[in-house]
């Protein structure tokens, strides 16, 4: 064996933890990426939806005039389709957990339950013709009383959206354990409070777009559209249409942002299929911005009682959550109330805890899944409680958190809602944040500023996000499948069941595979989002892209690598295949490039002269593997609890704000972020997830709110009335990473898709209240828009 000067391969896997660029970034920046609405299949017919003007009414729809207009191919109504098609399948069903049955039709059959609900679909040769004809659809409304407020919807005499339920409660439940009343009775103090979150909206820049194409000859449906979940959607489309799954192909082109909104269960996903089958040609629907904004989230009230001892330890928390779901939907959005409850009591040791939640329907548009899938409720509650305990005990808010956190040596730790937190170092997060922000200096600056009539505040937000969900009975699982194959020229293709909402997980998966096979990035390509090509997968939900998509790709790549080693061992006359190293494009003996073969040569040899070079090796350079999280538990424990989440990313944020007490405007001066999502495959992509989440959180905390008038009309229908933060509204962020690897994943990753939103909402709420504290004022409702801040100041002792 040669020593010293002999050429050797790189010491470490070169791509692991490296912020390589997006593999297809040049196509993006030069406008060459085709999103769904950029496709145009020959002969496509266009859909325009006629929408309800009233929030609650029985309807009859007269389409006779519209049907005769130029270019019109058909006009569908709920009634015209009801004979042939039942309700659409539910992404999640509330019934098994004691909730109400959901029957969502592609178009409502006899009544509408929110303003803007589609009541008829006009299909024409051109969009302009469909729009013109839509004006001639006559809808007769028999108005019913409507209810927009969830607490009013709980009243005994409230109008019922779905009469057969007997109430407006879709689902209710309780999580937690212990005896909160007894714990409170023996504690030093008790705090009561209420928090409210306004109605937010996912609002991706790309509205939804769906195109279905029915081939009457082969009786096969191809569906193109904005979806996060091609395989689950294929399953439900087949079920809905009465087709075999093999006769439905779902293709998901790149999407312009999802944030949960583009998971499956929207009526229009199935509507375009019905219309395509009826017309035997491609049918396309693209929504407008107002339609996108009709899907909301949050809009919840949390009433809480917390008890504490003089040492700042929280002894119990009881929470009553009322979630305003708006109209029912099949998207499984109701699960956000459950997830928000389970996310309590966060990473704190609260021995007695209970959350009672009720998901209430009202005459607003439906809830949509929205990152971080309701978990912001749990984070906001606990971070509010921590600050309240600090005020009562006179302890510093940071110290109160330190005293209540699960300690780094206590993992795995089972919370009082039954989640087994895998790993973490919460105090480490805070220590890191304090290396960036000089806390004592800030307090001095704050005191000086107050002397000058300026109101600065610092707020803490800490989040633990249950991710990697596996929901029993639903097509949301903590596993995914990937195939890795190498061609005779050494080209590697990855096929995976996870999809990318644009976050770069495709590139990161290529990094993982390239490293394990010892090849360069440009030897690897990836295919996502096509059910005819890719293995089954759950798409992108619950931060799974790298967790299970990357995990399964790593396992499959390792199989192919093992095969290459076996073949190369035979070709290089080495007995022990384990001595072979795949790196830098070569298979080498112990990393020695003088005893090496190009990987492409080994692949080619196996395909072409396998009987000679490796007669005992099965000539397959392909593997399909599943990675499934092993810490999910669906059998209930003695307490009746299951463990539906598999990984727990966490983070702490410190926000510094200045509140202008004359205008009520909140200005963010600093935002320090420390997060821990375990091992990062591509740190720049991870950072991008968090900075994006932060600005979603800033919007939810300060500016974004979907408003309705008393007549049930939605006032926020565009970006002038639903205010997304702009670049000039947010500061530069101060970002730190902490890495506590997950013990349950092959790569140590934890999932980064939902981070930053919740703890930004909490840190800004607490920062505003810290700023207002000298005035005796505080806000308890987000977003902290100027009128709310001014009202709080007016109610304080200014």
């Amino acid at each position: 064996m040669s020593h010293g000067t002999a050429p050797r391969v790189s010491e470490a896997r070169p791509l692991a933890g490296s912020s390589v660029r997006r593999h297809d970034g040049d196509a993006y920046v030069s406008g060459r990426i085709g999103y769904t609405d950029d496709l145009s299949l020959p002969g496509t017919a266009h859909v325009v939806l006629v929408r309800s003007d009233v929030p609650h009414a029985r309807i009859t729809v007269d389409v006779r005039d519209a049907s005769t207009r130029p270019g019109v191919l058909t006009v569908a109504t709920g009634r015209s389709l009801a004979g042939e098609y039942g309700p659409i399948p539910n992404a999640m069903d509330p019934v098994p957990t004691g909730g109400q049955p959901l029957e969502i039709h592609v178009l409502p059959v006899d009544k509408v339950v929110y303003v803007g609900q589609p009541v008829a679909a006009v299909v024409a040769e051109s969009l302009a013709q469909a729009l013109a004809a839509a004006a001639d659809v006559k809808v007769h409304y028999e108005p019913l009383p409507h209810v927009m407020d969830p607490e009013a919807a709980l009243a005994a005499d409230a109008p019922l959206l779905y009469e057969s339920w007997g109430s407006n409660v879709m689902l209710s439940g309780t999580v937690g354990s212990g005896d909160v009343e007894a714990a409170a009775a023996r504690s030093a103090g008790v705090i009561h409070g209420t928090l409210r979150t306004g109605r937010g909206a996912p609002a991706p820049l790309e509205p939804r777009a769906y195109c279905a194409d029915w081939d009457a000859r082969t009786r096969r449906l191809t569906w193109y559209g904005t979806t996060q979940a091609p395989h689950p959607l294929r399953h439900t489309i087949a079920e809905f249409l009465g087709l075999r799954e093999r006769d439905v192909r779902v293709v998901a082109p790149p999407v312009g942002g999802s944030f949960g909104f583009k998971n499956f269960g929207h009526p229009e996903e199935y509507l375009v299929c019905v219309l395509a089958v009826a017309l035997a040609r491609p049918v396309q629907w693209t929504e407008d911005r107002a339609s996108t904004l009709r899907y909301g989230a949050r809009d919840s009230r949390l009433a809480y009682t917390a008890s504490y001892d003089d040492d700042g330890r929280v002894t119990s928390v009881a929470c009553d959550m009322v979630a305003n779901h708006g109209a029912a939907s099949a998207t499984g959005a109701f699960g956000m109330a459950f997830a928000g409850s389970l996310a309590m009591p966060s990473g704190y040791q609260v021995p007695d805890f209970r959350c009672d939640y009720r998901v209430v329907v009202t005459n607003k548009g439906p809830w949509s899944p929205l990152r971080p899938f309701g978990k912001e409720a749990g984070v906001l509650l606990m971070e509010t409680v921590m600050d309240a305990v600090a005020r009562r005990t006179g302890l510093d808010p940071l110290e109160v958190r330190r005293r209540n956190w699960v300690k780094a040596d206590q993992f795995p730790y089972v919370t009082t809602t039954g989640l087994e937190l895998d790993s973490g170092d919460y105090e480490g997060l805070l220590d890191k944040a304090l290396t960036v922000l000089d806390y004592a200096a800030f307090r001095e600056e704050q005191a000086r500023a107050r002397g000058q009539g300026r109101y600065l505040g610092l707020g803490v937000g800490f989040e633990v996000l249950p991710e990697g969900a596996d929901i029993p009975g639903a097509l949301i699982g903590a596993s995914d499948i990937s195939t890795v194959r190498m061609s005779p020229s050494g080209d590697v293709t990855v096929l995976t069941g996870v999809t990318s909402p644009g976050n770069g997980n495709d590139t990161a998966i290529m990094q993982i595979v390239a490293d394990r096979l010892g090849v360069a990035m440009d030897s690897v390509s990836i295919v996502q989002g096509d059910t005819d090509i890719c293995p089954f997968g759950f798409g992108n939900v619950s931060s799974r892209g790298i967790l299970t998509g990357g995990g399964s790709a790593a396992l499959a790549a390792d199989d192919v690598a093992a095969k290459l080693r076996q073949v190369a061992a035979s070709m290089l006359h080495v007995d022990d295949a384990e001595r072979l190293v795949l790196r830098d494009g070569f298979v080498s003996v112990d990393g020695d490039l003088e005893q090496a073969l190009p990987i492409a040569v080994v692949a080619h040899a196996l395909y072409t002269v396998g009987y000679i070079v490796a007669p005992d090796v099965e000539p397959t350079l392909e593997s399909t593997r599943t990675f499934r999280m092993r810490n999910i538990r669906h059998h209930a424990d003695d307490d009746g609890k299951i463990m539906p989440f598999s990984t727990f990313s966490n983070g702490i944020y410190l926000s510094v704000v200045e509140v202008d007490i004359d205008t009520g405007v909140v200005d963010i001066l600093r935002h320090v972020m420390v997060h821990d999502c375990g091992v990062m495959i591509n740190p720049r992509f991870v950072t991008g997830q968090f900075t994006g989440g932060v600005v979603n959180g800033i919007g939810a905390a300060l500016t974004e709110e979907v408003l309705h008038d008393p007549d049930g009309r939605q006032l926020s229908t565009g970006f002038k009335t639903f205010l997304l933060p702009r670049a000039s509204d947010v500061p530069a962020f101060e970002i730190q990473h902490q890495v506590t690897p997950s013990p349950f994943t092959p790569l140590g990753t934890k999932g980064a898709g939902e981070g930053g939103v919740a703890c930004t909402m909490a840190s800004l709420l607490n920062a505003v209240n810290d700023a207002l504290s000298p005035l005796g004022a505080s806000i308890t409702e987000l977003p902290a828009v100027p009128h709310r801040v001014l009202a709080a100041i007016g109610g304080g002792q200014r």
Partner: protein
Amino acid sequence: MSTTEHDHSTTTRLSLNLDGTDRTADVDPRSLLVEALRDDFGVTAPKIGCATGDCGACTSRVDGQITKTCLRLAVSAEGSQIVTTQGLAEDGELDVVQQAFWDEQAFQCGFCLSGMIFAASELLAENPDPSEQDIRWAISGNLCRCTGYEAIVAAVRTAAARQREIPQRG
């Protein structure tokens, strides 16, 4: 311009120079410019995110001026020279702003790129060494829901630095 009856609707002939090529199409005179670019000329780089001038996803350069093409009627662009992000690359080589957006991972879903890239280009044409605040103001007419703007600001800064280092073309 000529007007003809066609398929029950009236169309108007529109001629443009689009991404360096002279093009003609029959468009519905009610079309927004972005609709005509996408549907009648088949150039899909400009996106429709709002159709109210708020998000900037439809931005293109029209006669040298960056323009939210959802705020103009197609027929008003007769004879115009229009450049989309599809036409920015010269001989297949990305321009300095496009390259920096790729290098700095300044996009996720990519839907906002037309607006961000053209706003950044316009800023750099006027101010070769912009401050962070200059950059944030320059791109604030465009919305991004994915990145939190941090990486976009970094990309504009990188593009500015690279542009200062290389001699100007032409």
